[in-house]
C-alpha cells in the first residue's frame, strides 16, 4: 500500500469538521518541482462530547475513539533517483467505566500502530529500476482494568499488553526485458522484536507490584524471483519462487514457497483464472473463544512454536457485460493450514502460569498447535462507471480447526468462521453537485463457546471429607456443549450519506450529512450472563453489549 504523494507545484489543503470527527490534509512543495510534503490527521471525539452528560445519567459509560496521523516527504533528485520518507501513527481505544457509591471501575482495551518508511527509487535504465526501503513498525495491543473501592480505599490496577516491533530492509528490482515479460527479483530481511505479553499489576492494600515484561526476537529473511509472462495477448502467467528463512533463538526454519497463477481471456468479455500458492507465516494470531472480551493477540514463531504453513488453490471466472456496464467475477478457494495455534483449554493469556502447575511457564506452554481448513466461494458484481456505481459482494465460506488437545481432539468451527458475508456499496450522482451514497454489510456471527446449563460435579474423594481443602470443593460448573458451537448474532448495518458539492473562488466546499447504522442495529460485541430477581424468582439471561448505535453526523469539508 502506497501513500499519496504531496503536490510539488503548489499548496493544497482539505479539511472536514464534523460532530463526531474531524480531519485535515495539507500538501505542498518544499522545493518547487523537486520536493513535497503531505500531512494529514483524523480524530473521532463523540465520546468526549457525550461523556459529561452520560456521567450524570448512567452508572455505565461506554466509549470509543480513534485518531491517526500521516506524513510523507518526497524528494526528486532527477529522473533516476527519488527519495520518499513517510510515517503513520494511529490508535483505537475502547473503554467501559462503571461507577457506584461503593466502587468505580475503568476497563478497556486499545491498539495502535506506528510506522516509518524510507524508500529510494532508482532507475538504472528505462527497463530496470529498483526500490530500496527501510521500514520500521510498532504494533501494540493492551487491556487494562483499574478498580477502586471508595470507602475502603482499595486501589487495584492491572494492565496486559503485547506487541510487535519490526525493522525491515527491503530491496526490489523490476526488469522489463521485452513487452512479454516483467521480471521481479528481491530480498527482504525483518528483525522482529515480539512482546508476546507484558503484565503489570498494582494492588496497594495487598502490596502487590508486578511488572512482568518478556521479549522474543526473530530474524526473518526472504529472497524471491517472479516473472509475469504474457506469451499471447489473451494469456497472462505469473510464476515465482521464494526462499523463506527464519531464525528463532536456536532453531532455524527454511522453506521454498512456489506460486503460480494464470489468467486466460477466452472471449473479449470472459476470462478464467487460477492460482496456487504455498506460504509460511512466522507470526501467529491467537484468539480467545469465549463470549466475553474479544481478544486477538499476535505471537511469534519460536524454537517450540513452528511457523504456520499454508497451501491455497483458487479458481475463478470473470465476465463483463456492456448493457448495463457490469463486471461479474466468481472465485472459489481451498486452503489448508498447518501449525496454527490456539489457547489450551483453561489457559490464561493474562496470568500465564498453568493452573495445575507450580512451575514457571511462559506463554508457549499455554498454546497448542493444530490444523485448519478454509474454503469458500466469492461473488462480486461491480459497476465502475455511470451515475450509479458500486458493487455487491458475497462470500460463502467455512473455516474449521482441529487440535489434539482442544475439544477432545474433535474438529470445530473457528471463531471467525463466517458462513455468509455480504457487502453492498453504492454511490449515485443525483445532480452535478449532489451525491448519494449507501453501504450495507452483513456477516454471520462469530462462533463462540457458550454455557448451555450447569451442574455440580463430584470428584473422587477416597478418604472422605478428610482430603478436601478450601478451593477444592467445586461449585456448579457449566456444560458448554461442543466448542464454538454457538453463534453470536449476525453483524449487519446500513450507512447512508448525502454530499452537497459547491465550487468556491478558493476551491470547493462539501456539506455531508450521513447516518451510521441507520436502523440502529445492536450488533453484538460481547455477551455476559446475568441473573435477575423478579417477584422472588430468579431468572438467568444472556446480555449483549453493543458498541455503536445509530449515529447521525454532519460535516463540512473544504478543499483548496
Amino acid at each position, binding site marked *: 500500500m502506497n501513500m499519496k504523494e504531496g503536490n510539488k507545484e503548489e499548496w493544497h489543503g482539505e479539511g472536514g469538521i464534523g*460532530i463526531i470527527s474531524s480531519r485535515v490534509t495539507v500538501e505542498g512543495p518544499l522545493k518547487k518541482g523537486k520536493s513535497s510534503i503531505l500531512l494529514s490527521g483524523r480524530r473521532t471525539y463523540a465520546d468526549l462530547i*457525550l461523556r459529561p*452528560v*452520560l456521567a450524570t445519567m*448512567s452508572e*455505565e459509560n*461506554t466509549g470509543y475513539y480513534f485518531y491517526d496521523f500521516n506524513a510523507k516527504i518526497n524528494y526528486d533528485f532527477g529522473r533516476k533517483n527519488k527519495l520518499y520518507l513517510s510515517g503513520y501513527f494511529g490508535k483505537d481505544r475502547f473503554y467501559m467505566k462503571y461507577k457506584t457509591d461503593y466502587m468505580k471501575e475503568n476497563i478497556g482495551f486499545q491498539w495502535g500502530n506506528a510506522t516509518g518508511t524510507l524508500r529510494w527509487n532508482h532507475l538504472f535504465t528505462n527497463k530496470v529500476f529498483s526500490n530500496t526501503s527501510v521500514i520500521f513498525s510498532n504494533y501494540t495491543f493492551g487491556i487494562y482494568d483499574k478498580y477502586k473501592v471508595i470507602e475502603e480505599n482499595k486501589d487495584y490496577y492491572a494492565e496486559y499488553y503485547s506487541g510487535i516491533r519490526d525493522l525491515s530492509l527491503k530491496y526490489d528490482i523490476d526488469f522489463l526485458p521485452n513487452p512479454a515479460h516483467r521480471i521481479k527479483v528481491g530480498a527482504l530481511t525483518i528483525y522482529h522484536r515480539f512482546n508476546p505479553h507484558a503484565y503489570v499489576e498494582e494492588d496497594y492494600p495487598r502490596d502487590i507490584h508486578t511488572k512482568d515484561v518478556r521479549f522474543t526476537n526473530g530474524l526473518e529473511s526472504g529472497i524471491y524471483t517472479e516473472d509475469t509472462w504474457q506469451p499471447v495477448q489473451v494469456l497472462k502467467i505469473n510464476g515465482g519462487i521464494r526462499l523463506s528463512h527464519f531464525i528463532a533463538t536456536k532453531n532455524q526454519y527454511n522453506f521454498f514457497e512456489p506460486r503460480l497463477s494464470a489468467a486466460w481471456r477466452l472471449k473479449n468479455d470472459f476470462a478464467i483464472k487460477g492460482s496456487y500458492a504455498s506460504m509460511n507465516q512466522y507470526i501467529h494470531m491467537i484468539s480467545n*473463544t*469465549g463470549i*466475553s*472480551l474479544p481478544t486477538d493477540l499476535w505471537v511469534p514463531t519460536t524454537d517450540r512454536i513452528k511457523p504456520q504453513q499454508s497451501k491455497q488453490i483458487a479458481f475463478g471466472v470473470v465476465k463483463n457485460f456492456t448493457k448495463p456496464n457490469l463486471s461479474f467475477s466468481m472465485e472459489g478457494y481451498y486452503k489448508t493450514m498447518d501449525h496454527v495455534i490456539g*489457547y489450551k*483449554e*483453561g*489457559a*490464561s*493469556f*493474562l*496470568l500465564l502460569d*498453568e*493452573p*495445575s502447575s*507450580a512451575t514457571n511457564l511462559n506463554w508457549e506452554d499455554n498454546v497448542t498447535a493444530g490444523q485448519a481448513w478454509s474454503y469458500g466461494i466469492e461473488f462480486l458484481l461491480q459497476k465502475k462507471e455511470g451515475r450509479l456505481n458500486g458493487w455487491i459482494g458475497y462470500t460463502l465460506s467455512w473455516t474449521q480447526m482441529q487440535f489434539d488437545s482442544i475439544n477432545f481432539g474433535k474438529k470445530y468451527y473457528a471463531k471467525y468462521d463466517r458462513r455468509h458475508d455480504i457487502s453492498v456499496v453504492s454511490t449515485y450522482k443525483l445532480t452535478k453537485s449532489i451525491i448519494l451514497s449507501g453501504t450495507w454489510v452483513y456477516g454471520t456471527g462469530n462462533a463462540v*463457546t457458550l*454455557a*448451555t*446449563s*450447569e*451442574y*455440580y460435579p*463430584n*470428584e*473422587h474423594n*477416597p*478418604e472422605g471429607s*478428610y*482430603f478436601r481443602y478450601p478451593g477444592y470443593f*467445586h461449585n*456448579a*460448573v*457449566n*456444560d*458448554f456443549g461442543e466448542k464454538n458451537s454457538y*453463534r453470536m*448474532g449476525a453483524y449487519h448495518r446500513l450507512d447512508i450519506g448525502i454530499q452537497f458539492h459547491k465550487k468556491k473562488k478558493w476551491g470547493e466546499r462539501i456539506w455531508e450529512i450521513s447516518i451510521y447504522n441507520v436502523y440502529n442495529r445492536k450488533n*453484538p460485541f460481547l455477551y455476559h*450472563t446475568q441473573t435477575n430477581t423478579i417477584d422472588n424468582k*430468579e431468572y*438467568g*439471561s*444472556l*446480555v*449483549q*453489549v*453493543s458498541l*455503536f*448505535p*445509530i*449515529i447521525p453526523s*454532519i460535516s463540512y469539508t473544504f478543499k483548496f
Partner: protein
Amino acid sequence: MTFQKPGYLFIFLLIIVLFSCEKDVTNIKLPEFIQKLVISSFISPSDTVSYINISSNRRIYGELGVDEQVGKLTAFLSDNTREVSLDTSKSGFVFRPKDMLIEEGKEFKLRVLGDKGFSVFASCIIPEKMDFFLEADTFSIPVDYYWSSDRRRIDVRLTIHDIQGKDNYYRILGKGVGYYSDPYTHESHKGDNIIRFENEFFSDKGVDGKEIIQESNHGLNYFFDHDSAFLVFYLYNTDKSYYQYHKSLNEYNGGDNPFEEVSPIFSNVTGGLGVFAAYTVDSLVLRLK
C-alpha cells in the same frame, strides 16, 4: 432540518447512545435446555462397596431453581460376560463384590435408563495393579511459625518408578497420623493432617519408565510432640478418564474470567455428563516415631 440548533441533535444522540449499550439477547436463539444425567463413579478392586452417584444438570437461562426431577432410574453394570441390575442408594446406585467383582484389566460398562427417556452409557477398564516401588524421603526443616511448638516442619519427596511401555496416570495423596495422651486426663487422642503435593494428578507422558519425583513442601508441623506418628501415602494408578476428569476440574474456567479461555469439564458419559472411571491403589506407610 436545520443545524443551527445543534443541541437537539446532541440530545437525540445522547438518547440513542444510552439505550444502545446493553440489552438482553433476543435476536438469537438461546441454547435449548436439555436435561442430562450427571454420573460420577470411581470403581476399584480394593473397594468393598462402590457407588454410582447420579444427579442432573439445571437451566441457567429463563426461570431458575425450577426443580428438574429425573424420574425413576434403573442402572445396569456389565463385565462383558454378564449384566447385573444395581440397587438404588440415597444418591444413585450401589453395588458390592458379591453383585459384580471388580477385577484388574477388565472392562466394565454402565447403562442408566430412565422413565423420562434418559439413556446414558459409559465404560472403563480397571488398571492393572502394579508395584511402583514407592519411596519416600522426609526432610525436617527449621521454621519460625509461631504456632509450631517444635519450630520444625516435615517436607516429603515421593519417588515413583514408572512402568515402561504403558501410559500411566497417577494421583497421589498423603496424610500424617499421630497419637498422644492428654497429660491431664491421660486420655488417648488421634490427630491427623493432610499432605498436599505440588502435582496431585499427573501422567508419565515424557517420563515413561523413569523415576517420577513429586514433592510436598507445604510442611507438616503437627506431630513432633505426639507419642507416635505415621505418614501414609496413597498412589492411585488411574485410567485416563479419571485423570482427564480431575485435571479438567482443577483447570476449570466457566467463562467468568474474561482473560481466561473457557475450559470444559471432561466427560466419558455418552448421552450425559460426568465420569465413570477406575483406579487401583498402592500405598506406603512410614513411621515417624
